[in-house]
């Protein structure tokens, strides 16, 4: 039995009178890819923002490796080993790849100078090159290249490898294949498989059900702020999942037609 990494119990979050999240519970195990599906407004974003510390939850408990935690900021989430890769917003385009990889965790000399401490530029460059080599994209990319010169797929690869580098236990991918070409999309999906192989747990948010069937182990479906179904990929099919997302019984419709 694989070890449990992240457990959410009865998470609740309201914005004014809107109950964006009602009693969401789920468990994520080690080396597992779980897809979080749901229509727009189903509460997927609220759920992952709560886990990644963007805003605090109203009620409910979060456990990391069985230990109850409270996550009040993105920094606390990162320190707990939860890395989130938001769609299109994870990198600063005017910074180099190396500086992006270590943003917020820059290697410095003279640490006592706090935010005024000088960056350890040599270490920054070396570590970035080593990381790019490890994730297999060093041939094409120079660690000093600005992110603004990269393609969408290359940017996703950088963001994902950053999450891997800090040995994150849980990697949350929010629409990682949005706006990507076919080849780039396959690159990202290959990455997801590699992360699983390396023992990371992945929570994948996407609209593309085909991708889910390609990489995920389990599927969790949300509707109107609630988790309405949980299925193992091996035991379900596309039509079932689609009808669960929309809430309509599509298979019945198909039969009637």
């Amino acid at each position, binding site marked *: 039995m694989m070890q449990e990494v992240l457990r959410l119990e009865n998470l609740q979050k309201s914005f004014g009178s809107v109950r964006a999240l009602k009693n969401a519970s789920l468990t994520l195990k080690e080396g597992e890819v779980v897809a979080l599906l749901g229509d727009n407004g189903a509460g997927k974003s609220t759920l992952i923002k709560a886990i*990644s510390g*963007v805003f605090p939850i109203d009620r409910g408990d979060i456990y990391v490796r069985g230990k109850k935690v409270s996550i009040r*900021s*993105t*920094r606390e989430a*990162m320190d707990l080993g939860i890395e*989130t890769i*938001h769609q299109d*917003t*994870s*990198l*600063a*385009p*005017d*910074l*180099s790849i*190396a*500086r*992006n990889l270590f*943003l*917020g*965790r*820059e290697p*410095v000399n003279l640490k006592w*100078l706090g*935010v*005024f*401490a*000088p*960056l350890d*530029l040599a270490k*920054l*460059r070396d570590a970035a090159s080593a990381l790019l080599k490890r994730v297999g994209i060093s041939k094409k990319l*120079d660690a*000093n*290249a*600005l992110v603004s*010169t990269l393609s969408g797929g290359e940017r996703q690869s950088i963001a994902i490898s950053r999450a891997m580098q800090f040995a994150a236990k849980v990697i949350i991918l929010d629409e990682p294949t949005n706006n990507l070409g076919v080849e780039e999309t396959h690159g990202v999906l290959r990455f997801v498989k590699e992360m699983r192989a390396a023992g990371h747990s992945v929570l994948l948010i996407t609209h593309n059900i085909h991708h889910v069937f390609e990489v995920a182990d389990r599927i969790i479906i949300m509707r109107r702020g609630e988790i309405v179904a949980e299925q193992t990929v091996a035991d379900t099919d596309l039509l079932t999942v689609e009808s669960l997302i929309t809430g309509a019984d599509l298979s019945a419709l198909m039969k009637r037609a």
Partner: protein
Amino acid sequence: MVQQVMVQQVGAVISEDGAGRAKGRSSLMRSPQFSSFVILIVLLVVFAVADGNFLSPLNISNMMAFLPELGIIALGMTLLLTAGEFDLSVGAVFALAPVVVMLLVQNAGIDIGVALFAGLLLCIAIGAINGVIVTKIGISSFLVTLSMLLIVRGAALYITQGFPLKSWDQPGFFVTLLAGSFNIGAFRFYTSLWWFIGLSLLAVYVLHYAKLGNWISAIGSNRNAAVARGVPADAVKIWLFVLTSVLAGLAGMISAFRISAASPVAGTGYELEVIAMVVVGGTALTGGRGTILGTIVGALMLRAIRNGIVLVGVPGLAYNIFVGVIILAMLILHALLQKNAARS
């Protein structure tokens, strides 16, 4: 002398800086600081040829006396712009700080040192109010600092009833510290030049070599990404607003001590002149890309233009036309270079 040092620094920073994909000669030529620098040299040569007095010790001394006052504000503005915000209230703070200090000294009989400290606190408060409203309430810095410009300028006019105050003209520690002068050969320099050089080196270090600089660029480039990495974006911005205000107040004090007068209308229009210096130097108005060396080049350039076109005989009333045309030409050049770089 300053210019020579800068040539070396421009080269050094461009070839090292991790933020640039600087490789070989072509990308060095394409960097915005470099093109600004070339244009500065061209301008200096043109002015020197057109008027023999342009490079005379007296004229250079004059330019160097004015340069730090706007240049110091421009350093703060560069950091603020790089973080994606700007401050239109600097010209008004430039006037209010010395006015308040002088009123405290002359009307309340407070010691000059204490009065300067009170002026410093006032600048910190103005910057903090700007920063908190921009980040916590989420109003654009254009609107917030435009309002602050009116409030601060209005306050300076009201408390002085519109009359300039005679400034502190007794020699002493603070006057020497801020506006003392010394001669090197035929050149006469003010201590403000040392302030400018020191603060410039500090700003180069912070923006290009320190952890904080990485954060500032990241915030201006993509605030959400920076926040998601645990960078305290709001705090950084608030401190940058405070810094910019304090530097504006410092520049105002330097100016007031130098000319022995504190005027409530001093620094009118400085906000735009400073922003012009910064963007002419190659810092992006939209944030993310900042260069202190570019700003120094920009400050020198605007100073040289204002000085040079008077010397070459452009009528005084026409000279803003020339300044405007030259700034516009610079910006067009930067935009074209940017486009070229993106295409290659």
